[in-house]
């Protein structure tokens, strides 16, 4: 179970998304997941091994590393990407439920036999109206909330988005204050800013999609809104 499987699952939701939703999904997988896997993971690969403290005291390095990096950037991004992609599954479940209902109707030989074959029901695209609109809008809302929460958590934990070269540590068992040096701080700063920027773009796309859905609904006649 890895990013490829998640992409396969979410790719199925793509068919029922708006155009902005499709762009969002592409940005997610190409500019965030792929960058995380092919680049960021290697940059942070030696984060603990190459975290060096100016002391011979055993245990000081471990403790200082743990103090300054409670959770690694990579893991935080991985969790963020998982949480941000999963609201789309709400939409997938709703679509699957509607398909199931249509298949049941088709089997019973309902009056609206507009499908020649059960296969056609599977490949039919549902328009974002009625209860599906509410599910879709909720999923976008949750995406926005998760993105914002993680960006805030990031900012709060690391006091800004810059990776310092040197941290001063005085946690026990380090004797007095000890200088510790972070490995590849500039490269890490570059990737952090990149990931934050793409996260910001995704937030903008989600806000745009949200507004688009609201406008689409209010432009139609109000009586159609509730069906």
């Amino acid at each position, binding site marked *: 179970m*890895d990013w490829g*499987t998640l992409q396969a699952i979410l790719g199925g939701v793509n068919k029922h998304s708006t155009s902005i939703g499709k762009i969002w999904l592409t940005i997610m997988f190409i500019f965030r997941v792929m960058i995380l896997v092919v680049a960021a993971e290697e940059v942070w690969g030696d984060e603990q*091994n190459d975290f060096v403290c100016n002391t011979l005291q055993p*245990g000081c390095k471990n*403790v200082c590393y743990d103090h300054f990096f409670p959770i690694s950037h*990579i893991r935080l991004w991985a*969790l963020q990407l*998982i949480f941000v992609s999963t609201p789309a*599954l709400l939409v997938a479940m709703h679509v699957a*439920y509607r398909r199931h209902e249509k298949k049941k109707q088709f089997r019973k030989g309902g009056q609206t036999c507009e499908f020649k074959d059960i296969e056609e029901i599977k490949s039919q695209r549902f328009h974002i109206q009625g209860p599906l609109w509410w599910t879709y809008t909720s999923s976008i809302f949750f995406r926005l909330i998760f993105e914002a929460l993680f960006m805030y958590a990031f900012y709060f934990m690391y006091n800004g988005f810059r990776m310092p070269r040197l941290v001063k540590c005085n946690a026990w068992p380090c004797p007095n204050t000890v200088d510790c040096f972070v490995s590849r701080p500039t490269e890490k700063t570059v990737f952090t800013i990149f990931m934050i920027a793409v996260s910001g773009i995704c937030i903008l796309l989600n806000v745009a999609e949200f507004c688009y859905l609201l406008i689409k609904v209010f432009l139609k006649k109000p009586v159609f809104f509730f069906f």
Partner: protein
Amino acid sequence: MNWAGLYTVVSGVNRHSTAIGRIWLSVIFIFRIMVLVVAAESVWGDEKSAFTCNTQQPGCNSVCYDHFFPISHVRLWALQLILVTTPALLVAMHVAYQQHQEKKLLVLTGHGDTKHLEEVKKHKMRISGSLWWTYICSVIFRLLFEAVFMYIFYMIYPGYQMIRLVKCEAYPCPNTVDCFISRPTEKTIFTVFMLATSGICIILNMAELVYLVVRACARRAQRDSNPTSGKSSLYGHKLSTEYKQNEINQLLTEQDGSLKDMLRRNPGLQEKSDRCSAC
């Protein structure tokens, strides 16, 4: 065989699950297995190499690590996830058996063309009769395994917090030695996360159990008040409307024991009232 292989095997059961069962499956694969693979494994990756003891005594490091970490969290979670997902295979096997029996019946009653046989494979089995019992057993086993592993976790690592420092006195360490664990905070965060999702899965399983029992009782009440309705299989319904009882009896006298058993067990084909409590 890796997690992707397990996903392929278990997601085949998805079609015959309840809605809660499908949600449970998504939570397992996305919030537990995926987080384990993409995040937790790299957090625990250097657990032994970065476990440092304040001594130069050879062997002390290994002995202390082994004393405090008899089995790594990651391996425990992997075992838990495998054991928790496999009861679903009981259901898969039962469904495959039922489908095989339906196909046999179709061939015998002259509907053995490929179109009908394909439909047997594609249609969703209703969770009633013996399949209901199998399903309930699988949910109970899931609950049991989850609970057992959470208990084992608590026994081996009392408290869910990973401490920064452990004091070790095992031979060959001289006296008491301070040993420092790598990334304790990150490990605590992931431990809490995995336990929380485990708790959510336990709640989902209980909800599914309650839902199945309530649904079965409601069906039974409906059947008691309206005995002529309700069939338990797709073809049971079609066949009983197309064929008269004496034609099926004719088949019964001609065919082998296993098919007679199936027709006896499958009340829809016989148009008798259902004596099974879970239909």
